[in-house]
């Protein structure tokens, strides 16, 4: 046994540091989630400093569960994450397969494709919501306005005018509204993260065995069959990796939600935590614990999925 003591002793600083790193924030969150702790209260000044005498039991959890935004935030978190994953993986595979062929200007096209990934999230959000999706000043507003002008002009045209007079006037969509703000976030994050998927899939496609493809051609496989039976299985592992990394990142989206609608009609768990943390640290901590649980559930599913593809 003694020959194991020294290695363990030498490992211990790193292990202890990592434990502290993880355990202290987690246990502080747990502690705050069981006490009454607010940043500012004129009526009950004793609640403004954390102490066991303010013990609330599961009161914070009950408060969070009963707040009208909680279930909505969980639902919305899942909607946003799943939609982004779905869109980025599909777009990523299609674009990667498309630009994997050799064509002139390939290098420039690839660099341009990757560039959205280097834009900061907040800049990305401002850019999209103000310059592209804005119903009046954005590209959307200009395009819809232009289309309306065109139709209006054609109404006076001879012969076909009657046909265009049947057309209604188009209305631009406001992406800051309660019903649509989640879609704005999905669009802009998909735009930003598709390059990441493309990058990973492209490197994987370049390692695809060309003789396998030639064998499949001789075996009579059509382009679709080659994609379905060779390329897609080959991409299984990178798809699992892209899904896992993105799920971790997108569960904690914040800047985009803040900038698009300040949480109006579109909250996720981190945003809800942020709102509670304006004053009620106890409730924010309880929500944080819920977020940890949700992240773990997602992680278990993902690890199973990734584990399965890695085993093959």
């Amino acid at each position, binding site marked *: 046994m003694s020959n194991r003591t020294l290695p363990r002793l030498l490992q211990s600083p790193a292990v202890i540091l990592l434990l502290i790193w993880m355990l202290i924030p987690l246990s502080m969150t747990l502690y705050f989630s069981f006490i009454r702790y607010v940043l500012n209260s004129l009526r009950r000044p004793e609640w403004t400093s954390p102490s066991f005498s303010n013990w609330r039991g599961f009161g914070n959890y009950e408060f969070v569960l009963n707040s009208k935004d909680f279930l909505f935030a969980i639902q919305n978190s899942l909607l946003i994450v799943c939609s982004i994953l779905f869109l980025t993986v599909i777009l990523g595979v299609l674009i990667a397969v498309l630009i994997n062929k050799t064509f002139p200007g390939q290098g420039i096209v690839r660099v341009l494709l990757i560039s959205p990934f280097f834009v900061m999230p907040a800049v990305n959000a401002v850019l999209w919501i103000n310059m592209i999706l804005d119903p009046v000043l954005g590209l959307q507003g200009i395009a819809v306005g232009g289309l309306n002008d065109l139709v209006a002009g054609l109404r006076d045209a001879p012969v076909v005018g009657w046909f265009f007079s049947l057309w209604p006037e188009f209305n631009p969509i406001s992406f800051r509204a309660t019903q649509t703000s989640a879609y704005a976030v999905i669009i802009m994050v998909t735009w930003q993260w598709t390059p990441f998927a493309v990058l990973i899939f492209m490197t994987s496609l370049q390692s695809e065995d060309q003789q396998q493809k030639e064998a499949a051609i001789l075996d009579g*496989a059509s382009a679709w*069959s080659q994609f379905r039976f060779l390329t897609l299985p080959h991409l299984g592992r990178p798809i699992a990796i892209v899904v896992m990394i993105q799920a971790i990142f997108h569960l904690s989206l914040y800047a985009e939600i803040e900038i698009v609608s300040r949480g109006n009609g579109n909250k996720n768990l981190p945003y809800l935590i942020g709102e509670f943390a304006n004053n009620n640290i106890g409730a924010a901590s309880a929500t944080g614990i819920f977020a940890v649980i949700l992240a773990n559930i997602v992680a278990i599913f993902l690890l199973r999925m990734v584990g399965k593809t890695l085993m093959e």
Partner: protein
Amino acid sequence: MGRIVLDKVTKNFGDTQVIPPLDLTIEDGEFAVFVGPSGCGKSTLLRLIAGLEDCTSGRVMIDGEDVTEVSPSKRGLAMVFQTYALYPHMTVRKNIAFPMRMAGMSEEEQNTRIAAAAESLNLTDYLDRKPGQLSGGQRQRVAIGRAIVRDPSAFLFDEPLSNLDAALRVGMRLEITEMHARMNTTMIYVTHDQVEAMTMANKIVVLQAGVIEQVGSPLDLYHRPCNKFVAGFIGSPKMNLIEGAEAAKHGATTIGIRPEHVEVSATDGLWQGTVGVAEHLGSDTFIHIHGIDGCDPMTVRTGGNVSFKHGDTIYLTPDATQIHKFDAAGLRID
């Protein structure tokens, strides 16, 4: 049926012509081996026949039908690749079934054919494994199985044994030769190994720089090489090529004598030299000899029980009937 005719086929990659106009006929049921040093265009030629490369000009005909513009899968050929090219995420069964599945063959028909192919290739116990769990030889057999089930008019092999170890290579060589004897289907086999070419082929096609140097049966090529290149390429150990005064005596620029056609003696003979290295194989001994005019080292092949050592003096006498004569252009003189 599988009579393959190449008619003035050429291939350019960019501005370089890798195959100048080339004519070749492979008869139905023949085992043809394309052999040559690496980069001689033998693989390219095979890929032209398979349709994986387009001919720059000329025609490829299978059974009298022009297939130059026909897609690879419609040519009715099956190919076995050097890297096996198995589909890694499919089981052996699915790998073998793949071409039939693509052709939309019925499930029962597929199963009978898979069973028959697995039986003949000793793969029955491995049908539910993935390629990653098989050894190199087994993988190559799966690749052959995938080719057999298509019932092709000709098999194309692209250096199929180069990734196997020496012992396995000899075994697979026999299996493929036997398979050909049994099925009697046309086979085209590409290799850089002249031993494979000699042992397997009915017809050897020797290529150099995209040009066919000689076409013939293995013994034809061995006994009557039409030029210096073929003479040096076919046969192991290589033929000794002697230049200068010795060759002039026979009225040639170069003469060639195979190592097995030289008599060895410790006391007297036509040529005198010093032993460099003697390689004892048990059945034979290869002796590399220095100090003979026009050819250094000269290799001779003699019985297993000789005891020449490094530095010994040795006398050699060539068998006069087995001397090959070549002119200044390297062509055979009869």
